[in-house]
Protein backbone atom coordinates (compact mmCIF):
# COMPACT_ATOMS: atom_id res chain seq x y z
CA UNK A 1 0.00 0.00 0.00
CA UNK A 2 2.83 2.37 -0.68
CA UNK A 3 1.01 3.73 -3.63
CA UNK A 4 -0.69 6.89 -2.38
CA UNK A 5 -2.59 7.69 -5.50
CA UNK A 6 -6.04 6.25 -5.88
CA UNK A 7 -5.77 2.73 -7.24
CA UNK A 8 -7.53 2.14 -10.48
CA UNK A 9 -9.45 -0.72 -8.95
CA UNK A 10 -9.71 -2.17 -5.46
CA UNK A 11 -9.16 -5.80 -4.76
CA UNK A 12 -10.62 -7.75 -1.86
CA UNK A 13 -7.17 -7.68 -0.23
CA UNK A 14 -7.48 -3.94 0.32
CA UNK A 15 -10.43 -4.46 2.64
CA UNK A 16 -9.33 -7.54 4.52
CA UNK A 17 -7.59 -5.61 7.31
CA UNK A 18 -4.97 -6.89 9.71
CA UNK A 19 -5.30 -10.61 10.53
CA UNK A 20 -3.49 -10.11 13.80
CA UNK A 21 -5.84 -7.48 15.05
CA UNK A 22 -8.77 -9.59 14.13
CA UNK A 23 -7.36 -12.51 16.12
CA UNK A 24 -6.88 -10.26 19.16
CA UNK A 25 -10.45 -9.07 18.80
CA UNK A 26 -11.73 -12.65 18.81
CA UNK A 27 -9.57 -13.52 21.79
CA UNK A 28 -10.82 -10.57 23.85
CA UNK A 29 -14.34 -11.50 22.99
CA UNK A 30 -13.80 -15.09 24.10
CA UNK A 31 -12.20 -14.09 27.41
CA UNK A 32 -15.02 -11.70 28.22
CA UNK A 33 -17.59 -14.30 27.30
CA UNK A 34 -15.93 -16.81 29.63
CA UNK A 35 -16.00 -14.28 32.47
CA UNK A 36 -19.70 -13.76 31.93
CA UNK A 37 -20.31 -17.49 31.60
CA UNK A 38 -18.38 -18.30 34.75
CA UNK A 39 -20.57 -16.13 36.93
CA UNK A 40 -23.64 -17.87 35.57
CA UNK A 41 -22.08 -21.30 36.06
CA UNK A 42 -21.21 -20.42 39.66
CA UNK A 43 -24.78 -19.32 40.34
CA UNK A 44 -26.10 -22.52 38.87
CA UNK A 45 -23.67 -24.60 40.91
CA UNK A 46 -24.69 -22.82 44.11
CA UNK A 47 -28.34 -23.53 43.47
CA UNK A 48 -27.54 -27.12 42.49
CA UNK A 49 -25.58 -27.71 45.69
CA UNK A 50 -28.46 -26.29 47.70
CA UNK A 51 -31.07 -28.33 45.89
CA UNK A 52 -29.19 -31.61 46.28
CA UNK A 53 -28.84 -31.47 50.06
CA UNK A 54 -32.20 -29.82 50.52
CA UNK A 55 -33.83 -32.67 48.62
CA UNK A 56 -32.11 -35.22 50.84
CA UNK A 57 -33.56 -33.37 53.81
CA UNK A 58 -37.07 -33.11 52.45
CA UNK A 59 -37.21 -36.72 51.36
CA UNK A 60 -35.94 -38.14 54.65
CA UNK A 61 -37.31 -35.85 57.30
CA UNK A 62 -40.36 -36.82 59.32
CA UNK A 63 -43.18 -34.50 58.41
CA UNK A 64 -44.22 -34.09 62.04
CA UNK A 65 -40.85 -32.61 63.01
CA UNK A 66 -41.38 -29.76 60.53
CA UNK A 67 -44.31 -28.48 62.54
CA UNK A 68 -43.51 -28.66 66.22
CA UNK A 69 -42.60 -26.00 68.76
CA UNK A 70 -39.06 -24.97 68.07
CA UNK A 71 -35.99 -25.12 65.92
CA UNK A 72 -33.56 -27.65 67.40
CA UNK A 73 -31.93 -29.28 64.42
CA UNK A 74 -29.42 -31.20 66.52
CA UNK A 75 -32.28 -32.96 68.21
CA UNK A 76 -34.17 -33.51 64.99
CA UNK A 77 -36.78 -30.80 65.59
CA UNK A 78 -37.07 -28.65 62.52
CA UNK A 79 -39.97 -26.30 63.06
CA UNK A 80 -39.58 -24.01 60.08
CA UNK A 81 -42.24 -21.57 61.30
CA UNK A 82 -40.00 -20.67 64.25
CA UNK A 83 -37.39 -19.39 61.82
CA UNK A 84 -39.92 -17.77 59.48
CA UNK A 85 -41.54 -15.96 62.39
CA UNK A 86 -38.19 -14.77 63.71
CA UNK A 87 -37.22 -13.55 60.25
CA UNK A 88 -40.57 -11.85 59.80
CA UNK A 89 -40.38 -10.03 63.13
CA UNK A 90 -36.84 -8.84 62.46
CA UNK A 91 -37.84 -7.67 58.99
CA UNK A 92 -40.93 -5.83 60.19
CA UNK A 93 -38.97 -4.04 62.91
CA UNK A 94 -36.16 -3.27 60.48
CA UNK A 95 -38.60 -1.77 57.96
CA UNK A 96 -40.35 0.21 60.68
CA UNK A 97 -36.96 1.79 61.34
CA UNK A 98 -35.56 2.01 57.83
CA UNK A 99 -38.58 3.15 55.82
CA UNK A 100 -39.42 6.38 57.70
CA UNK A 101 -35.79 7.32 58.23
CA UNK A 102 -34.64 6.32 54.75
CA UNK A 103 -37.61 7.96 53.05
CA UNK A 104 -37.25 11.05 55.17
CA UNK A 105 -33.58 11.31 54.27
CA UNK A 106 -34.41 10.77 50.61
CA UNK A 107 -37.11 13.44 50.61
CA UNK A 108 -34.77 15.86 52.32
CA UNK A 109 -31.90 15.16 49.94
CA UNK A 110 -34.04 15.23 46.82
CA UNK A 111 -36.46 18.07 47.58
CA UNK A 112 -35.18 20.24 50.39
CA UNK A 113 -31.40 20.13 50.71
CA UNK A 114 -29.43 22.89 49.02
CA UNK A 115 -26.79 21.59 46.63
CA UNK A 116 -23.97 22.10 49.13
CA UNK A 117 -25.66 20.18 51.92
CA UNK A 118 -26.50 17.33 49.56
CA UNK A 119 -22.88 17.10 48.50
CA UNK A 120 -21.91 16.75 52.15
CA UNK A 121 -24.67 14.37 53.23
CA UNK A 122 -24.59 11.80 50.45
CA UNK A 123 -21.05 10.59 51.25
CA UNK A 124 -21.98 10.39 54.94
CA UNK A 125 -24.86 8.14 54.01
CA UNK A 126 -22.50 6.01 51.98
CA UNK A 127 -20.21 5.66 54.98
CA UNK A 128 -23.15 4.29 56.92
CA UNK A 129 -23.67 1.83 54.08
CA UNK A 130 -20.04 0.80 54.35
CA UNK A 131 -20.10 -0.13 58.06
CA UNK A 132 -19.44 -3.87 58.34
CA UNK A 133 -22.51 -5.65 59.61
CA UNK A 134 -20.50 -7.32 62.36
CA UNK A 135 -19.81 -3.88 63.81
CA UNK A 136 -23.49 -3.06 63.68
CA UNK A 137 -24.15 -6.36 65.40
CA UNK A 138 -22.08 -5.30 68.37
CA UNK A 139 -23.67 -1.89 68.32
CA UNK A 140 -27.08 -3.55 68.48
CA UNK A 141 -26.01 -5.81 71.33
CA UNK A 142 -24.14 -3.29 73.47
CA UNK A 143 -26.04 -0.09 72.74
CA UNK A 144 -29.44 -0.62 71.15
CA UNK A 145 -30.35 -3.47 73.45
CA UNK A 146 -29.56 -1.91 76.86
CA UNK A 147 -30.19 1.74 75.97
CA UNK A 148 -33.32 1.46 73.86
CA UNK A 149 -34.95 -1.96 73.94
CA UNK A 150 -34.51 -2.72 77.63
CA UNK A 151 -35.98 0.69 78.44
CA UNK A 152 -39.00 -0.01 76.28
CA UNK A 153 -39.65 -3.23 78.09
CA UNK A 154 -38.35 -4.22 81.49
CA UNK A 155 -38.83 -7.84 80.49
CA UNK A 156 -36.41 -7.57 77.61
CA UNK A 157 -33.41 -9.83 77.79
CA UNK A 158 -29.92 -8.71 76.77
CA UNK A 159 -30.13 -10.72 73.57
CA UNK A 160 -33.39 -9.91 71.82
CA UNK A 161 -35.04 -9.82 68.43
CA UNK A 162 -35.99 -6.15 68.72
CA UNK A 163 -32.41 -4.89 69.03
CA UNK A 164 -31.41 -7.06 66.10
CA UNK A 165 -34.34 -5.69 64.08
CA UNK A 166 -33.38 -2.09 64.83
CA UNK A 167 -29.79 -2.90 63.90
CA UNK A 168 -30.83 -4.42 60.59
CA UNK A 169 -33.04 -1.38 60.05
CA UNK A 170 -30.08 0.96 60.50
CA UNK A 171 -28.14 -1.18 58.07
CA UNK A 172 -30.81 -0.78 55.37
CA UNK A 173 -31.40 2.98 55.80
CA UNK A 174 -28.77 3.94 53.18
CA UNK A 175 -30.25 1.45 50.74
CA UNK A 176 -33.76 2.84 51.16
CA UNK A 177 -32.52 6.42 51.05
CA UNK A 178 -30.43 5.99 47.94
CA UNK A 179 -33.00 4.11 45.83
CA UNK A 180 -35.82 6.43 46.94
CA UNK A 181 -33.76 9.52 46.26
CA UNK A 182 -32.93 8.30 42.76
CA UNK A 183 -36.60 7.67 42.13
CA UNK A 184 -37.64 11.10 43.34
CA UNK A 185 -34.92 12.94 41.51
CA UNK A 186 -35.95 11.27 38.29
CA UNK A 187 -39.34 12.96 38.58
CA UNK A 188 -39.11 15.75 36.00
CA UNK A 189 -38.58 19.26 37.36
CA UNK A 190 -41.42 20.38 35.08
CA UNK A 191 -43.91 18.60 37.33
CA UNK A 192 -42.62 20.38 40.41
CA UNK A 193 -42.77 23.71 38.59
CA UNK A 194 -46.33 23.00 37.54
CA UNK A 195 -47.23 22.39 41.15
CA UNK A 196 -45.44 25.47 42.49
CA UNK A 197 -46.98 27.51 39.69
CA UNK A 198 -50.40 26.57 41.01
CA UNK A 199 -49.55 27.91 44.44
CA UNK A 200 -48.62 24.63 46.09
CA UNK A 201 -46.14 24.64 48.92
CA UNK A 202 -43.07 22.44 48.98
CA UNK A 203 -44.55 19.83 51.28
CA UNK A 204 -47.73 19.67 49.19
CA UNK A 205 -45.70 19.32 46.02
CA UNK A 206 -43.63 16.55 47.57
CA UNK A 207 -46.59 14.60 48.91
CA UNK A 208 -49.04 15.09 46.06
CA UNK A 209 -46.81 15.21 43.00
CA UNK A 210 -43.29 13.91 43.58
CA UNK A 211 -44.05 10.88 45.75
CA UNK A 212 -46.96 9.62 43.59
CA UNK A 213 -44.84 10.07 40.47
CA UNK A 214 -41.95 8.18 42.08
CA UNK A 215 -44.06 5.51 43.74
CA UNK A 216 -42.73 2.58 41.70
CA UNK A 217 -39.21 3.46 42.74
CA UNK A 218 -40.26 3.79 46.37
CA UNK A 219 -41.89 0.35 46.24
CA UNK A 220 -38.68 -0.98 44.71
CA UNK A 221 -36.70 0.57 47.56
CA UNK A 222 -38.99 -1.13 50.04
CA UNK A 223 -38.69 -4.53 48.38
CA UNK A 224 -34.92 -4.35 48.06
CA UNK A 225 -34.68 -3.35 51.71
CA UNK A 226 -36.92 -6.24 52.77
CA UNK A 227 -34.80 -8.60 50.74
CA UNK A 228 -31.67 -7.24 52.37
CA UNK A 229 -33.18 -7.49 55.83
CA UNK A 230 -34.24 -11.10 55.31
CA UNK A 231 -30.78 -12.02 54.08
CA UNK A 232 -28.87 -10.13 56.76
CA UNK A 233 -26.95 -12.54 58.97
CA UNK A 234 -24.34 -10.99 61.20
CA UNK A 235 -26.46 -8.49 63.12
CA UNK A 236 -29.10 -11.06 64.01
CA UNK A 237 -26.48 -13.67 64.73
CA UNK A 238 -24.83 -11.46 67.31
CA UNK A 239 -27.70 -9.49 68.79
CA UNK A 240 -30.65 -11.87 68.70
CA UNK A 241 -28.93 -14.55 70.70
CA UNK A 242 -28.67 -17.33 68.19
CA UNK A 243 -27.68 -20.40 70.18
CA UNK A 244 -28.27 -23.08 67.67
CA UNK A 245 -31.83 -23.62 68.70
CA UNK A 246 -34.87 -21.77 69.93
CA UNK A 247 -38.43 -22.27 70.97
CA UNK A 248 -41.22 -20.84 68.90
CA UNK A 249 -41.71 -17.27 70.07
CA UNK A 250 -43.36 -14.12 68.83
CA UNK A 251 -41.97 -11.90 71.57
CA UNK A 252 -39.57 -9.36 70.11
CA UNK A 253 -38.04 -8.73 73.53
CA UNK A 254 -36.79 -12.27 73.81
CA UNK A 255 -33.99 -14.03 71.95
CA UNK A 256 -34.94 -15.56 68.65
CA UNK A 257 -33.72 -17.18 65.51
CA UNK A 258 -33.88 -16.00 61.94
CA UNK A 259 -33.26 -18.26 58.98
CA UNK A 260 -29.83 -16.76 58.40
CA UNK A 261 -28.73 -16.87 62.03
CA UNK A 262 -29.95 -20.45 62.35
CA UNK A 263 -27.68 -21.49 59.51
CA UNK A 264 -24.73 -19.46 60.74
CA UNK A 265 -24.93 -20.68 64.31
CA UNK A 266 -24.80 -24.31 63.21
CA UNK A 267 -22.05 -23.78 60.69
CA UNK A 268 -19.87 -21.44 62.70
CA UNK A 269 -16.34 -22.25 63.66
CA UNK A 270 -16.29 -25.88 62.71
CA UNK A 271 -16.01 -27.97 59.63
CA UNK A 272 -18.55 -30.37 61.04
CA UNK A 273 -22.13 -29.74 61.83
CA UNK A 274 -22.92 -31.80 64.85
CA UNK A 275 -26.23 -33.26 65.74
CA UNK A 276 -28.77 -35.73 64.53
CA UNK A 277 -28.58 -37.17 61.06
CA UNK A 278 -30.26 -34.44 59.08
CA UNK A 279 -28.90 -31.36 60.85
CA UNK A 280 -26.46 -30.69 58.08
CA UNK A 281 -29.03 -31.12 55.32
CA UNK A 282 -31.60 -29.01 57.16
CA UNK A 283 -29.37 -25.98 56.80
CA UNK A 284 -29.39 -26.37 53.03
CA UNK A 285 -33.14 -26.59 53.08
CA UNK A 286 -33.36 -23.32 55.00
CA UNK A 287 -30.81 -21.75 52.69
CA UNK A 288 -32.78 -22.78 49.62
CA UNK A 289 -35.92 -21.28 51.11
CA UNK A 290 -34.04 -18.07 51.84
CA UNK A 291 -32.65 -17.99 48.34
CA UNK A 292 -36.11 -18.46 46.82
CA UNK A 293 -37.59 -15.65 48.93
CA UNK A 294 -34.89 -13.12 48.12
CA UNK A 295 -34.89 -14.10 44.44
CA UNK A 296 -38.60 -13.44 44.14
CA UNK A 297 -38.24 -10.12 45.97
CA UNK A 298 -35.35 -8.99 43.80
CA UNK A 299 -37.15 -9.85 40.58
CA UNK A 300 -40.16 -7.96 41.87
CA UNK A 301 -38.03 -4.94 42.75
CA UNK A 302 -36.45 -5.03 39.30
CA UNK A 303 -39.90 -4.82 37.74
CA UNK A 304 -40.75 -1.73 39.74
CA UNK A 305 -37.46 -0.04 38.92
CA UNK A 306 -38.14 -0.75 35.26
CA UNK A 307 -41.49 0.95 35.57
CA UNK A 308 -39.89 4.15 36.83
CA UNK A 309 -37.52 4.17 33.89
CA UNK A 310 -40.37 3.70 31.45
CA UNK A 311 -42.46 6.49 32.87
CA UNK A 312 -39.93 9.24 32.25
Amino acid at each position, binding site marked *: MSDLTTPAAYTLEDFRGSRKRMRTEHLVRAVLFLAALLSIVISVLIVASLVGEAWTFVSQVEAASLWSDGWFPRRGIYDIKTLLTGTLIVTVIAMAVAMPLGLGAAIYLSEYAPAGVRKLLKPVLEILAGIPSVVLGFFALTFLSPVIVQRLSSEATQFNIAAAGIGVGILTIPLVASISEDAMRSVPAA*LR*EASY*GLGARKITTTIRVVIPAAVSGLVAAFIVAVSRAIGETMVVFIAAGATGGSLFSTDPFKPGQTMTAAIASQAAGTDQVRGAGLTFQSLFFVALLLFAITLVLNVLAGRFVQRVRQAY
Partner: protein
Amino acid sequence: MTDAPMVGSMPTSAPSRGGATVFDVHDVSVHYGDFRAVRDVSMQVKQHQITAFIGPSGCGKSTMLRCFNRMNDLIDTARVEGDISYHGVDLYDPAVNPVEVRRRIGMVFQKPNPFPKSIYDNVAYGPKVAGAKGNLDDVVEQALQGAALWDEVKDRLKESGMSLSGGQQQRLCIARAIATDPEVLLMDEPCSALDPIATGRIEDLMVEIKERYTIIIVTHNMQQAARVSDRTAFFTTEVSEESDRRTGLLVEFSDTDKIFTNPADERTENYVTGRFG
Protein backbone atom coordinates in the same frame (compact mmCIF):
# COMPACT_ATOMS: atom_id res chain seq x y z
CA MET B 1 -24.82 47.51 20.05
CA THR B 2 -23.08 50.37 21.70
CA ASP B 3 -24.78 53.26 23.40
CA ALA B 4 -27.91 51.45 24.52
CA PRO B 5 -30.56 53.99 25.38
CA MET B 6 -31.41 54.53 28.98
CA VAL B 7 -34.06 51.92 29.20
CA GLY B 8 -35.25 53.16 32.55
CA SER B 9 -36.18 56.51 31.15
CA MET B 10 -37.75 55.14 28.01
CA PRO B 11 -41.38 56.11 27.49
CA THR B 12 -42.61 52.80 28.77
CA SER B 13 -46.23 53.19 27.92
CA ALA B 14 -47.89 55.21 25.31
CA PRO B 15 -51.15 56.58 26.70
CA SER B 16 -52.65 53.28 27.53
CA ARG B 17 -55.93 51.89 26.56
CA GLY B 18 -56.95 49.01 28.75
CA GLY B 19 -57.54 49.07 32.42
CA ALA B 20 -55.59 49.49 35.57
CA THR B 21 -51.90 48.79 35.88
CA VAL B 22 -51.39 45.21 37.00
CA PHE B 23 -47.62 45.06 37.12
CA ASP B 24 -45.40 48.06 37.60
CA VAL B 25 -41.83 47.05 36.87
CA HIS B 26 -39.03 49.37 37.78
CA ASP B 27 -35.34 48.88 36.95
CA VAL B 28 -35.42 45.13 37.37
CA SER B 29 -32.29 43.06 36.90
CA VAL B 30 -32.00 39.33 37.45
CA HIS B 31 -28.76 37.61 38.38
CA TYR B 32 -27.90 33.92 38.46
CA GLY B 33 -24.94 33.83 40.79
CA ASP B 34 -22.62 36.50 39.45
CA PHE B 35 -24.11 36.28 35.98
CA ARG B 36 -26.55 39.01 35.06
CA ALA B 37 -29.25 37.45 32.90
CA VAL B 38 -31.33 40.55 32.27
CA ARG B 39 -30.88 44.16 33.27
CA ASP B 40 -32.77 47.38 33.86
CA VAL B 41 -36.25 46.40 32.77
CA SER B 42 -39.03 48.90 33.37
CA MET B 43 -42.57 48.45 32.11
CA GLN B 44 -46.21 48.59 33.04
CA VAL B 45 -48.57 45.74 32.27
CA LYS B 46 -52.24 46.62 31.95
CA GLN B 47 -55.28 44.65 32.96
CA HIS B 48 -57.21 42.59 30.40
CA GLN B 49 -54.55 42.96 27.78
CA ILE B 50 -52.28 40.42 26.21
CA THR B 51 -48.68 41.51 26.55
CA ALA B 52 -46.16 39.66 24.40
CA PHE B 53 -42.43 39.32 25.12
CA ILE B 54 -40.41 38.70 21.97
CA GLY B 55 -36.72 38.56 21.23
CA PRO B 56 -33.87 36.24 20.35
CA SER B 57 -32.81 33.30 22.53
CA GLY B 58 -31.10 34.25 25.76
CA CYS B 59 -32.56 37.73 25.85
CA GLY B 60 -34.09 37.19 29.28
CA LYS B 61 -37.75 37.22 28.32
CA SER B 62 -38.52 33.95 30.11
CA THR B 63 -36.40 35.00 33.07
CA MET B 64 -38.39 38.24 33.22
CA LEU B 65 -41.69 36.36 32.98
CA ARG B 66 -40.72 34.18 35.91
CA CYS B 67 -40.18 37.25 38.07
CA PHE B 68 -43.90 37.97 37.96
CA ASN B 69 -44.90 34.91 39.99
CA ARG B 70 -41.61 34.51 41.80
CA MET B 71 -40.76 31.29 39.99
CA ASN B 72 -37.13 32.38 40.03
CA ASP B 73 -37.21 31.77 43.78
CA LEU B 74 -36.96 28.07 42.99
CA ILE B 75 -33.46 28.55 41.62
CA ASP B 76 -30.99 28.77 44.49
CA THR B 77 -28.67 31.23 42.82
CA ALA B 78 -31.27 33.57 41.30
CA ARG B 79 -31.50 37.11 42.66
CA VAL B 80 -33.96 39.79 41.57
CA GLU B 81 -33.10 43.46 41.94
CA GLY B 82 -35.39 46.43 41.41
CA ASP B 83 -39.11 46.76 42.04
CA ILE B 84 -42.01 44.75 40.74
CA SER B 85 -45.32 45.71 42.19
CA TYR B 86 -48.58 43.94 41.62
CA HIS B 87 -51.61 46.22 42.05
CA GLY B 88 -49.38 48.40 44.20
CA VAL B 89 -47.97 45.61 46.39
CA ASP B 90 -44.23 45.01 46.23
CA LEU B 91 -43.99 41.37 45.13
CA TYR B 92 -40.52 41.03 46.60
CA ASP B 93 -41.31 42.42 50.01
CA PRO B 94 -39.96 39.98 52.63
CA ALA B 95 -43.46 39.67 54.05
CA VAL B 96 -44.83 38.34 50.77
CA ASN B 97 -45.33 34.58 50.60
CA PRO B 98 -44.60 33.38 47.06
CA VAL B 99 -47.29 30.73 47.45
CA GLU B 100 -49.91 33.47 47.76
CA VAL B 101 -48.48 35.22 44.72
CA ARG B 102 -48.70 32.08 42.60
CA ARG B 103 -52.30 31.47 43.59
CA ARG B 104 -53.23 34.76 41.96
CA ILE B 105 -50.76 34.62 39.08
CA GLY B 106 -50.99 31.35 37.18
CA MET B 107 -48.47 29.95 34.76
CA VAL B 108 -48.48 27.82 31.62
CA PHE B 109 -45.16 26.32 30.63
CA GLN B 110 -43.33 25.76 27.39
CA LYS B 111 -43.67 22.01 27.40
CA PRO B 112 -47.08 20.70 28.37
CA ASN B 113 -46.54 19.27 31.85
CA PRO B 114 -49.71 17.58 33.07
CA PHE B 115 -49.35 15.61 36.28
CA PRO B 116 -49.39 11.82 35.90
CA LYS B 117 -52.90 11.94 37.34
CA SER B 118 -56.37 11.80 35.83
CA ILE B 119 -57.64 14.71 33.75
CA TYR B 120 -60.03 15.52 36.56
CA ASP B 121 -57.34 15.47 39.24
CA ASN B 122 -55.05 17.62 37.12
CA VAL B 123 -57.64 20.37 36.98
CA ALA B 124 -58.75 19.93 40.59
CA TYR B 125 -55.17 20.08 41.89
CA GLY B 126 -54.96 23.88 42.19
CA PRO B 127 -58.25 24.36 44.00
CA LYS B 128 -57.41 21.44 46.28
CA VAL B 129 -54.03 22.78 47.35
CA ALA B 130 -55.69 26.13 47.93
CA GLY B 131 -57.93 24.36 50.44
CA ALA B 132 -61.10 23.81 48.40
CA LYS B 133 -63.34 21.24 50.02
CA GLY B 134 -66.23 19.23 48.73
CA ASN B 135 -67.32 18.58 45.19
CA LEU B 136 -65.17 20.21 42.55
CA ASP B 137 -67.11 18.89 39.53
CA ASP B 138 -68.38 22.34 38.59
CA VAL B 139 -64.98 23.97 38.97
CA VAL B 140 -63.38 21.27 36.81
CA GLU B 141 -66.07 21.54 34.15
CA GLN B 142 -65.85 25.33 34.01
CA ALA B 143 -62.08 25.31 33.77
CA LEU B 144 -62.10 22.69 31.03
CA GLN B 145 -64.74 24.67 29.18
CA GLY B 146 -62.71 27.81 29.64
CA ALA B 147 -59.78 26.05 28.03
CA ALA B 148 -61.96 24.73 25.18
CA LEU B 149 -61.23 21.15 26.14
CA TRP B 150 -64.44 20.06 27.82
CA ASP B 151 -66.16 18.55 24.80
CA GLU B 152 -63.14 16.44 23.97
CA VAL B 153 -62.60 15.00 27.44
CA LYS B 154 -65.96 15.11 29.26
CA ASP B 155 -66.44 11.37 28.82
CA ARG B 156 -63.00 10.38 30.00
CA LEU B 157 -62.19 12.59 32.97
CA LYS B 158 -60.78 9.58 34.82
CA GLU B 159 -58.15 8.88 32.17
CA SER B 160 -54.59 10.06 32.65
CA GLY B 161 -53.81 13.59 31.55
CA MET B 162 -50.75 12.17 29.87
CA SER B 163 -52.88 10.14 27.47
CA LEU B 164 -53.96 13.32 25.66
CA SER B 165 -52.32 14.73 22.55
CA GLY B 166 -49.76 17.53 22.92
CA GLY B 167 -52.25 20.28 22.07
CA GLN B 168 -54.84 18.80 24.39
CA GLN B 169 -52.25 18.48 27.14
CA GLN B 170 -51.40 22.16 26.82
CA ARG B 171 -55.07 23.12 26.98
CA LEU B 172 -55.32 20.86 30.03
CA CYS B 173 -52.48 22.85 31.56
CA ILE B 174 -54.35 26.05 30.77
CA ALA B 175 -57.49 24.58 32.34
CA ARG B 176 -55.43 23.60 35.36
CA ALA B 177 -54.08 27.14 35.62
CA ILE B 178 -57.47 28.84 35.31
CA ALA B 179 -59.14 26.43 37.74
CA THR B 180 -57.54 28.36 40.59
CA ASP B 181 -59.26 31.48 39.26
CA PRO B 182 -56.10 33.53 38.87
CA GLU B 183 -56.02 37.18 37.89
CA VAL B 184 -53.01 36.86 35.62
CA LEU B 185 -51.83 34.08 33.32
CA LEU B 186 -48.14 33.91 32.49
CA MET B 187 -47.48 31.83 29.40
CA ASP B 188 -43.93 30.78 28.61
CA GLU B 189 -43.84 29.87 24.91
CA PRO B 190 -47.00 27.84 25.33
CA CYS B 191 -47.19 26.78 21.69
CA SER B 192 -43.59 25.96 20.95
CA ALA B 193 -44.18 22.21 21.28
CA LEU B 194 -47.42 22.23 19.30
CA ASP B 195 -48.42 21.89 15.67
CA PRO B 196 -50.04 24.84 13.83
CA ILE B 197 -53.61 23.64 14.37
CA ALA B 198 -53.15 23.20 18.10
CA THR B 199 -51.35 26.55 18.17
CA GLY B 200 -54.29 28.21 16.44
CA ARG B 201 -56.70 26.84 19.02
CA ILE B 202 -54.59 28.13 21.89
CA GLU B 203 -54.26 31.55 20.28
CA ASP B 204 -58.04 31.78 19.79
CA LEU B 205 -58.43 30.72 23.39
CA MET B 206 -56.09 33.43 24.64
CA VAL B 207 -58.01 36.16 22.83
CA GLU B 208 -61.24 34.70 24.18
CA ILE B 209 -60.21 34.63 27.81
CA LYS B 210 -58.41 37.94 28.02
CA GLU B 211 -61.71 39.55 29.06
CA ARG B 212 -61.28 37.74 32.35
CA TYR B 213 -57.53 37.55 32.78
CA THR B 214 -54.45 39.57 32.15
CA ILE B 215 -52.07 37.59 29.97
CA ILE B 216 -48.34 37.85 29.46
CA ILE B 217 -46.95 35.54 26.82
CA VAL B 218 -43.35 34.83 25.90
CA THR B 219 -43.05 33.74 22.31
CA HIS B 220 -40.42 33.04 19.71
CA ASN B 221 -43.02 33.37 17.05
CA MET B 222 -43.41 36.97 15.92
CA GLN B 223 -46.56 36.23 13.94
CA GLN B 224 -48.06 34.89 17.11
CA ALA B 225 -47.23 38.07 18.99
CA ALA B 226 -48.68 40.13 16.16
CA ARG B 227 -51.84 38.03 16.02
CA VAL B 228 -52.76 37.88 19.67
CA SER B 229 -51.14 40.62 21.66
CA ASP B 230 -52.17 44.17 22.43
CA ARG B 231 -48.75 45.28 23.50
CA THR B 232 -45.34 43.87 22.72
CA ALA B 233 -42.02 44.12 24.50
CA PHE B 234 -38.92 43.49 22.43
CA PHE B 235 -35.90 42.18 24.33
CA THR B 236 -32.45 41.64 22.93
CA THR B 237 -29.03 40.62 24.17
CA GLU B 238 -25.83 42.52 24.56
CA VAL B 239 -22.42 41.04 25.19
CA SER B 240 -21.04 42.37 28.42
CA GLU B 241 -17.61 43.98 28.13
CA GLU B 242 -16.04 42.47 31.20
CA SER B 243 -17.21 38.85 31.02
CA ASP B 244 -18.12 38.06 27.42
CA ARG B 245 -21.48 36.76 28.58
CA ARG B 246 -24.80 37.80 27.22
CA THR B 247 -27.19 39.93 29.19
CA GLY B 248 -30.75 40.56 28.12
CA LEU B 249 -32.35 43.98 28.06
CA LEU B 250 -35.65 45.52 27.10
CA VAL B 251 -35.32 47.57 23.94
CA GLU B 252 -38.82 48.72 23.24
CA PHE B 253 -42.24 48.27 24.75
CA SER B 254 -45.20 49.61 22.87
CA ASP B 255 -48.50 48.82 21.18
CA THR B 256 -48.10 45.71 19.07
CA ASP B 257 -49.11 47.53 15.88
CA LYS B 258 -46.41 50.07 16.44
CA ILE B 259 -43.71 47.48 17.19
CA PHE B 260 -44.43 45.64 13.97
CA THR B 261 -45.14 48.56 11.64
CA ASN B 262 -43.29 51.54 12.98
CA PRO B 263 -40.81 50.60 15.69
CA ALA B 264 -38.92 53.40 17.37
CA ASP B 265 -35.66 51.51 17.75
CA GLU B 266 -33.52 50.27 14.90
CA ARG B 267 -32.81 46.97 16.68
CA THR B 268 -36.53 46.28 16.96
CA GLU B 269 -36.95 46.99 13.29
CA ASN B 270 -34.09 44.69 12.35
CA TYR B 271 -35.59 41.92 14.44
CA VAL B 272 -39.19 42.16 13.32
CA THR B 273 -38.25 42.45 9.68
CA GLY B 274 -36.06 39.37 9.98
CA ARG B 275 -32.73 41.00 9.41
CA PHE B 276 -31.50 39.88 12.79
CA GLY B 277 -32.24 36.93 15.04
